[in-house]
C-alpha cells in the first residue's frame, strides 16, 4: 500500500515538474494567490471582494494603470491603513501581483467548515488550573482594564497585538500577540479573568487577563469581526464576511454549531449574507446576529439545538447595534435605509424604525440619562448634503430627539455616566480625520473639537469615567489619554496603528454611558 502511494507520488512529481516547465504561469498564479493571502487578504478580503479596504479584482481594477497600482503598493496610500510594501515585497512580485489582481475576478465564497475550525484549534495552556489566581500586576479592579486592538503597520506581524492598559495609571500591563490585526476585544461578563480577541482573519484568542497570556485560539473563517459573549460566559458566537457563516462555540473555543447565513432580503430576493454584529445580552441567554445583506436579525436561544427566531425585513444592509433597557431592546443600524431599527428581544419583533443620518454606523453605541430621559446616540459614516449628523433618540419613547450637526462622518460614540461629553470620532478623510468632537450631554451641541493626531478614532472612557482614551491610528502610532472634564491631554501610550478601544467596564454598564452601578 505504502509503496503504491510513493510510486504515485513520484509519478505526480514528474508530471508536475513537467507541467511547471510547460506552464510557469500556472505555478506563478498559485504563488500569487498565496502572496495575496499572506499580505493583502486580511484587509481586502480572501475572496478579493473587499473588507476593511476596497475590493481589488479584475472588475474593480479594470482600466487602472499598472504603473500607478505598482506605485500605490510600493508607497502605500496616505491617510488610509494601506502600508508601503516597498522593501517588504520584491519588485518583481509587486509587478506580478498587479497583473494577478487585474486578472482575478471576485472569488466565490471559499468554504471554511466546522472540520476546518476544529483542526485550527490551538491550545497554548493545557491545564488552566496552573494559571495564577489573581492578576500578576497592580490593578484596583479588573474593570479598570482597557484593551486596545493594535493593528500593526502591515495588519500582521510583530506589531499586531491586543494591548491592555490600566486606565488609572495609563501604563501597559499586558500584550498578547495576535499574528494578524486584532479587531474586537470582548470580555467575559461572568469571570473577570477572560477576554476574547478576534482578528481580521477571523481567529479568536482566549486570553487569561490575570497572566496576560493567550490560552487557546481557533480560526473561525477567513475574514470578519463579529464576536459576542453570552451573559454567563459559557458561549461565544463569531460571524464571518468570508465565508458567509457564523459559529457558536463553548468557552473552550470548541465549535458547537455552524449557521449558514442566508435569507430573503427586504426586496424579496434570496441572498447569501455577510455576518453583521453579534451581541450577547444581560437580558437573556441568547445571541442576536445581524445578517448584513439579508436584512434580517436572528435571535439564537442558547439551549439544546440552538433554535433560531428570524426577524425579517429589518432593513437594507444591517451592520452594528447596541442594547438598551436592561438589554431587552436592541438598536440595529441599517446602512442603506438611513434608519436605526429598535427590536424587542422579548417579543422578537420590530418596535420602530428611527431616522438616523447618512449611512448609520453606531459603533458600540452610547446611551445617557439626562433629565429623566434615556438618550441614545448613533454615529453615521456618511456625509450627505446637510445631513452630516450624530443622531439622538429618546429610547423610552423611541422617537428622534435631534440630529446634531458635526464636522464629518463619524464611526463610534463614547459616553460615560460620570463624564459630561459624548465623544465622536470624525473619520472624513482629510485633516478632519485627526479630530474628535465633544457633544455636551445637556445642550446636545458640539462644544469642542480636539486635534488628536494620526487618524483619531474609537474614543472610549475609562470605567470610572475620569479619562477619555482615543486611538491616534494609522501612522499616529499612539493612544492619547485626556482628562474627561478639562479635556487636557494627560498621557500617551505608544503602539503600532491602534484602532478599537474596549473598556472592561462595558460588561457592567452594557452600553457606554449608562450607570456603572445598576443595569439600566
Amino acid at each position, binding site marked *: 500500500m505504502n509503496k503504491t502511494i510513493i510510486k504515485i507520488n513520484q509519478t505526480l512529481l514528474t508530471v508536475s515538474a513537467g507541467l511547471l516547465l510547460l506552464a510557469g504561469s500556472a505555478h506563478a498564479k498559485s504563488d500569487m494567490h498565496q502572496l495575496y493571502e499572506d499580505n493583502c487578504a486580511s484587509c481586502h478580503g480572501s475572496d478579493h471582494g473587499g473588507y476593511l479596504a476596497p475590493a481589488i479584482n479584475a472588475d474593480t481594477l479594470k482600466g487602472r494603470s499598472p504603473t500607478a497600482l505598482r506605485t500605490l503598493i510600493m508607497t502605500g496610500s496616505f491617510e488610509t491603513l494601506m502600508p508601503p510594501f516597498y522593501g517588504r515585497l520584491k519588485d518583481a512580485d509587486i509587478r506580478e501581483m498587479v497583473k494577478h489582481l487585474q486578472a482575478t475576478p471576485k472569488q466565490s465564497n471559499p468554504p471554511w467548515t466546522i472540520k476546518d475550525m476544529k483542526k485550527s484549534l490551538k491550545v497554548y495552556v493545557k491545564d488552566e488550573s496552573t494559571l495564577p489566581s489573581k492578576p500578576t500586576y497592580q490593578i484596583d479592579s479588573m474593570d479598570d482594564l482597557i484593551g486596545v486592538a493594535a493593528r500593526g503597520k502591515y495588519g500582521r506581524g510583530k506589531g499586531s497585538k491586543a494591548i491592555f492598559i490600566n486606565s488609572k495609571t495609563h501604563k501597559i500591563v499586558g500584550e498578547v500577540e495576535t499574528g494578524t490585526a486584532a479587531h474586537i476585544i470582548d470580555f467575559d461578563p461572568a469571570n473577570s479573568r477572560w477576554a476574547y480577541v478576534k482578528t481580521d482573519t477571523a481567529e479568536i484568542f482566549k486570553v487569561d487577563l490575570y497572566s496576560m497570556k493567550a490560552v487557546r485560539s481557533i480560526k473561525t473563517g477567513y475574514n470578519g469581526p463579529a464576536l459576542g459573549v453570552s451573559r454567563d460566559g459559557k458561549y461565544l458566537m463569531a460571524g464571518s464576511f468570508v465565508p458567509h457563516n457564523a459559529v457558536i462555540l463553548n468557552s473552550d473555543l470548541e465549535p458547537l454549531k455552524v449557521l449558514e447565513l442566508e435569507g430573503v432580503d427586504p426586496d424579496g430576493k434570496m441572498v447569501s449574507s455577510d455576518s453583521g454584529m453579534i451581541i450577547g445580552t444581560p437580558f437573556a441567554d441568547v445571541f442576536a446576529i445581524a445578517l448584513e445583506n439579508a436584512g434580517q436579525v436572528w435571535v439564537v436561544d442558547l439551549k439544546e439545538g440552538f433554535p433560531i427566531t428570524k426577524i425579517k425585513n429589518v432593513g437594507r444592509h444591517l451592520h452594528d447595534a447596541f442594547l438598551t433597557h436592561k438589554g431587552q431592546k436592541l438598536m440595529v443600524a441599517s446602512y442603506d435605509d438611513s434608519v436605526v431599527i429598535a427590536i424587542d428581544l422579548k417579543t422578537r419583533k420590530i418596535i420602530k424604525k428611527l431616522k438616523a443620518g447618512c449611512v448609520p454606523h453606531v459603533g458600540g453605541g452610547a446611551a445617557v440619562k439626562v433629565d429623566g430621559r434615556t438618550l441614545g446616540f448613533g454615529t453615521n459614516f456618511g456625509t450627505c448634503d446637510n445631513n452630516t449628523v450624530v443622531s439622538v433618540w429618546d429610547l423610552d419613547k423611541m422617537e428622534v430627539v435631534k440630529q446634531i450637526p458635526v464636522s464629518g462622518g463619524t464611526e463610534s460614540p463614547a459616553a460615560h455616566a460620570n463624564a459630561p461629553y459624548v465623544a465622536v470620532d470624525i473619520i472624513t478623510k482629510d485633516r478632519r480625520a485627526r479630530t474628535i468632537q465633544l457633544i455636551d450631554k445637556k445642550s446636545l451641541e458640539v462644544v469642542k473639537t480636539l486635534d488628536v493626531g494620526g487618524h483619531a478614532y474609537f474614543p472610549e472612557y475609562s470605567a470610572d469615567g475620569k479619562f477619555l482614551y482615543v486611538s491616534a491610528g494609522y501612522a499616529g502610532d499612539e493612544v492619547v489619554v485626556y482628562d474627561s472634564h478639562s479635556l487636557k491631554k494627560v498621557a500617551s501610550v*505608544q503602539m503600532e496603528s491602534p484602532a478599537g478601544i474596549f473598556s472592561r467596564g462595558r460588561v457592567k454598564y452594557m452600553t457606554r454611558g449608562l450607570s456603572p452601578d445598576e443595569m439600566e
Partner: protein
Amino acid sequence: MKLLLVSIIMFSSFSAQAASIYAGKSKAAAVCSQCHGVRATSSDAPFPPLAGRDEEYLKMALKQYRDKTRVSEVMNNIAGSLTDRDINNIANYYSRQKN
C-alpha cells in the same frame, strides 16, 4: 506702517533661515511618516527610523536623494518633490523627536 514693514521683513528673514518645526511636522506626516513613522517604524518594516537622528545628516541624505547622487527609486522620487525649506523643516522636526 513702518512697524508692519519691519515685522514683515523680520518674519520673512526668520522663515528663510530658521527651520519651522510645525511645517516640518506637517510635511513629515504627509511625506515621511507613512514609512518611517514619527517616533519609530513598524517592528516589521524595512525602513530606518528617523527620530532623533542628526539634523545635518538628515539634510545631507535628503539632498543626495534629491539630486540622485544616492540612488533609491522610491527615495529619489519622494525627495525630488521637496524644496530646500522642506528639507530643513523635516530634518529639524525629526532630529527633535525622541525614539
